[in-house]
């Protein structure tokens, strides 16, 4: 249903709110950076991957920054999307009111951990990692769910919850607000590190950059240019902290802390395919619906 597109050289990018993604796109948004072969770039933001799919299917969106599970899910549902890269970053954090010990899982034995949604990727991964860490979910460690992320953050910040596994920047926000409220907490668990240890893969690739398949096939030079831009921009993400904080209306200290911590980077779809497959295979075994019940086929990463 894509039809004739009026502006063949306009690239339309939609991104879910994410600190690193925003940092990578800032140059394009402000017009300071340009992509060779592309006339203009239009960037907008979506609140959920759900909002993106009509655009991807209908051809109103060319490139989407979204959770890598959503990319696989779209592919599994027959939407022609490819992953042109993943944004590496510490996207998940376990925060708590204990000091960061050497045995994070032991600290959680008998405790209750707040997670935002039952059954979403954070929940599934936390359960997987807990099992890998020697805890039986729902027996040795309990989980408590909320319908919305902000509630989980608020509960931690005001001391209603002692442990939480949250995506960034919510985890950072929770720590900031908790400190303001006089109940400081720390990051005591790094799910990405736990993931690497448990699976042997090089990263936990949770955030992907997807592109419509026909665009990837017809204009590889645009894909290359975009990949180059993203690589350069993520390598230097900390520089755009201020702009990102303004754009996402986040406290500046949270953004500069997140971007300044390092570990951010960009790999192409081809480079990250192995890591993606490890993630997808685990999810397929434990929560197939998160990736649409099927592994993406060959050529998914470009």
């Amino acid at each position, binding site marked *: *249903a894509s039809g004739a597109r009026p502006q063949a050289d306009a690239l339309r990018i939609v991104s879910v709110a994410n600190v690193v993604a925003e940092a990578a796109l800032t140059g394009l948004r402000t017009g300071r950076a340009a992509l060779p072969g592309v006339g203009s770039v239009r960037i907008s933001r979506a609140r*959920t*991957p*759900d909002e993106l*799919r*009509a655009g991807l*299917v209908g051809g109103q969106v060319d490139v989407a920054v979204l959770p890598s599970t*959503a990319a696989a*899910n*779209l592919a599994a*549902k*027959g*939407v022609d999307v490819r992953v042109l890269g993943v944004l590496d970053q510490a996207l998940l954090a376990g925060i708590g009111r204990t000091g960061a010990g050497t045995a994070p899982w032991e600290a959680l034995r008998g405790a209750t951990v707040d997670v935002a*949604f*039952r*059954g*979403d990727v954070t929940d599934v991964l936390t359960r997987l990692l807990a099992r890998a860490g020697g805890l039986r979910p729902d027996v040795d460690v309990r989980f408590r*769910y*909320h*319908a*919305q992320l902000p*509630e989980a953050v608020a509960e931690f910040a005001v001391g209603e919850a002692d442990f939480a596994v949250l995506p960034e920047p919510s985890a950072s926000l929770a720590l900031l607000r908790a400190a303001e409220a006089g109940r400081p907490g720390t990051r005591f668990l790094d799910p990405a590190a736990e993931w690497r240890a448990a699976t042997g893969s090089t990263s936990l690739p949770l955030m992907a950059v997807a592109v419509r398949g026909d665009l990837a096939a017809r204009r590889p030079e645009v894909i290359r240019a975009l990949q180059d831009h993203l690589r350069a921009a993520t390598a230097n993400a900390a520089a755009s902290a201020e702009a990102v904080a303004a754009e996402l209306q986040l406290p500046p200290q949270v953004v500069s802390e997140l971007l300044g911590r390092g570990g951010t980077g960009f790999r192409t779809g081809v480079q990250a395919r192995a890591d993606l497959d490890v993630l997808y295979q685990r999810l397929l075994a434990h929560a197939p*619906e*998160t990736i*649409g019940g099927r592994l993406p086929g060959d050529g998914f990463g470009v």
Partner: protein
Amino acid sequence: MSERRGRRLRLSGAAVVGAAVLAGCWPAVAWQQPEILVPSPAETAAALLLLVESGELAAQLWTTLSRAAVGVAIGIAAGALWGLASASRRWIDEAGRPLRGLLLGLPPVIPAVLGTVWLGDAGAVAVLVVVVVTVPTAKVTVAEAARAIDADLLEMARVYRLPPAARLRHLQLPALVPALRSAASLCGAGGLRVAIMAELLVAPDGVGAAVAQARGNLATAEVFAWALVAVAAALVTDWLVARPARRGAASRAAEPVGAR
């Protein structure tokens, strides 16, 4: 007798035609769209079957229905009483105006946030949100209708000094039947929708939470299946509310009116 039956059959026929037209639109749209946007009836049916078989449907629906029922019952009772009081005393009406504006204007996020603080339990918060949405509907509908009650009959009740209970039973309630029916119809069927929305916002379980999860997983067919369930529940509620109403209407129109 048999003529009346024929009429009834023809009327249910109209309902079936209406349903068929709606149902026909769906595949027509689904035809041109990929499943991920608009799943076909078959795909939706498959998703529905899965929900039924896993027991998910019954469990979540029960949770949501009971929340909706409790919320709607409280909301209609409170709203109807408030509406009656408002119609009978201007100062009550005026004093209640800010509260009514609050209830009508408040984005449900706020009672959700406050409810979490006060009630703790997410289920109770969902009920609270349903109450908050139901009360003004019931109040406004009943108050406007109560204001329209035949002034002559009210005067008669005053002259004969009917005690408030008798006035309520013999005059106000019968006169308010249409308003109460529309309040019940709106709140009954709508209550479920509001409960789902409230769960979507605040609760970790119930149909709303299931919809949120299916949405997050881009499982459009499952979202549609839940929507079908919600619509079916609304139709059943509507039917239950409308049944006694129709009986009343039938007895009123007992006398045949011929063409000239």
